[in-house]
């Protein structure tokens, strides 16, 4: 089985789905230009040679248009895979995603479907406030959308393929430091996990989380980059006798709640780690679920290790402070023992 980066796994997933179904196509900025980048993080690199420029469609810088075209094409029978170069630009197409894509099926009483995928890179990478945000929490609050957050190459390909086949609008959030993009598009300080990815067909079901590390003392839930931070923290915590269970939900909407409840009911402690502003972040929802559904099992306050309530600063010392660190996770976990 070949080893792949997340960028390669996504590319392979797109390739397989485009080969399988002629209604699948990609649209976005700079995704297929000859001699170009293959998207901001090389995910579509080379695909326009394989599939041509009609199916790897380079768009104007028009995010409303990209989303609108994807929605219209999807309602008329296609299966678009759209992308934005940075998740921050989803705000430019927010109406199309929140008011249109998410509501068409509902307003039509289930007679219209919008099978589209929107991919968005997130995470702070030294680019300042407008190329760094994590937008998951805005979209987990919009009924009608599904929201995915793959953190491994295996999940990236498997979830992308499931997303393309889903009959609903699906957002896939991808972390810039996990892509493993190469060459001129590589990211400084990237983690770039490489993993075994079957070349043959497989799907990762939407709505199933996974326990990345078993433990009996505390449950730590992370997503994307913070899954890795949590795992590193767990290893260090083990050395002082705290066995942390680390959960990667993989899908944010629909959420595998039972997996989390089970773990919390076992450990009695919950720490949530995300690279996003604290107030009204996704972690708030998990805390709210836990204090409702697991109240009688909780032995300590539910803690959130999030970014502070500030825009993302540029200078490295501040950005480092902004993103939840292994050290902060360890301290917070210790604080509830």
């Amino acid at each position: 089985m070949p080893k792949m980066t997340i960028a390669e796994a996504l590319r392979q997933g797109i390739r397989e789905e485009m080969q399988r179904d002629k209604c699948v196509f990609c649209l976005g900025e700079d995704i297929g230009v000859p001699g170009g980048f293959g998207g901001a993080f090389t995910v579509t690199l080379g695909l326009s040679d394989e599939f041509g420029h009609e199916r790897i469609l380079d768009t104007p810088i028009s995010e409303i248009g990209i989303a609108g075209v994807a929605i219209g094409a999807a309602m008329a029978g296609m299966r678009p895979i759209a992308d934005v170069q940075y998740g921050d630009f989803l705000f430019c197409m927010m109406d199309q995603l929140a008011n249109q894509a998410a509501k068409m099926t509902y307003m039509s009483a289930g007679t219209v479907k919008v099978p589209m995928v929107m991919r968005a890179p997130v995470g702070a990478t030294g680019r300042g406030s407008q190329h760094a945000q994590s937008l998951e929490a805005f979209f987990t609050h919009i009924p009608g959308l599904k929201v995915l957050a793959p953190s491994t190459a295996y999940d990236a390909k498997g979830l992308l393929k499931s997303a393309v086949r889903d009959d609903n609008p699906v957002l896939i959030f991808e972390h810039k430091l996990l892509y493993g993009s190469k060459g001129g598009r590589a990211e400084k300080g990237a983690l770039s996990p490489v993993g075994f990815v079957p070349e043959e067909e497989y799907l990762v079901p939407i709505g199933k989380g996974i326990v990345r590390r078993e433990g009996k003392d505390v449950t730590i839930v992370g997503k994307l980059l913070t899954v890795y931070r949590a795992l590193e923290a767990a290893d260090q915590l083990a050395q002082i006798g705290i066995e942390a269970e680390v959960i990667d939900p993989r899908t944010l909407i629909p959420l595998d709640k039972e997996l989390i409840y089970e773990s919390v009911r076992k450990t009695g402690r919950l720490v949530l780690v995300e690279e996003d502003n604290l107030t009204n972040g996704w972690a708030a929802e998990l805390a709210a679920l836990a204090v409702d559904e697991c109240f009688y099992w909780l032995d300590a306050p539910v803690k959130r290790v999030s970014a502070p309530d500030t825009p993302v600063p540029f200078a490295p010392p501040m950005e480092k402070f902004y993103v939840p660190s292994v050290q902060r996770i360890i301290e917070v976990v210790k604080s509830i023992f």
Partner: protein
Amino acid sequence: MAEPIEVLGNGKMLSMYRTMFMIRRFEDRVNELYMQGQIPSTLHLYVGQEAVAVGVCANLDKDDYITSTHRPHGHAIAKGVSIKSIMAELYGKKTGCCQGKGGSMHVGDIQVGMFPAIAIVGANIPITAGAALACKFIHPGKVAVSFFGDGASNEGAFHEGLNMAAIWNLPAVFVCENNLYAASTPFTTTFKIKDVSERAAAYGMLGEIVDGNDVIAVYNAAKKATERARAGQGPTLLECKTYRQCGHSRSDPRGYRTKEEEAEWIKRDPILLLAERLLSEGNETSEDIKRIEDQVNVDIEGAIVFAKESPDTEPSDTLQHVYYG
């Protein structure tokens, strides 16, 4: 611009007359029922603009697509959505075209190629480009048509959607119904240009203006535009000059315009104009026309009865249809 009526033939003329009258009666009755408190919510009526929806849709068949706006009843009827299901939707009944989920501003029926109407001004425009892209890919010969108002052409969505349709040479027709007002705001308050169609040039797109109260003129202009689109010759921005005879929504006293202006336009009522031509050039008799109108009235009263007698939605229906399938 308007071809001699013979070219089209009385059959076509009469069927367009029938649909225009259907829309008018539908809106008039809906307004009465709304005033009586039988229909909930708010309403944006299409009174006075019937020639646009009818003249354009007379060039479309079931598997061509249209997108619409907050003012969609006329588009829906012209595209062939059953008046029973529209009326029932306005009543919020389970038998409505959206099973009560959508309401007046979101009527549609994908079975006849109408997506749920979109009440975010301008948002339907790039979506139309997307549907047109799908036509190009998998429904050759089909077109996607977008209806929107003068005000909508000031939205960023208009700009992005038209440019994409132009550069990809998509089979789309963008029908701007310029009724001189965006809600209460006069055209001249938000445009320094004379005609919305001037904006087509900004995208290298063909722009045309037509008398939106002359259904034959609209029909012919839309015929050219849809034929071009079907033949792969690209999109058109078709501006139809027309007038909303009623208020913008609900009880709108229309204090922002003069009674004189309204009178001028009502003199050029599109249904009146067509009736006159049918009598003169088409040498139909007023009996022929009366017969059509009587039948329409019967149908509409039937739709009202159907709507009233249809079952209400269940509270728990709220939870269905968030996701497809």
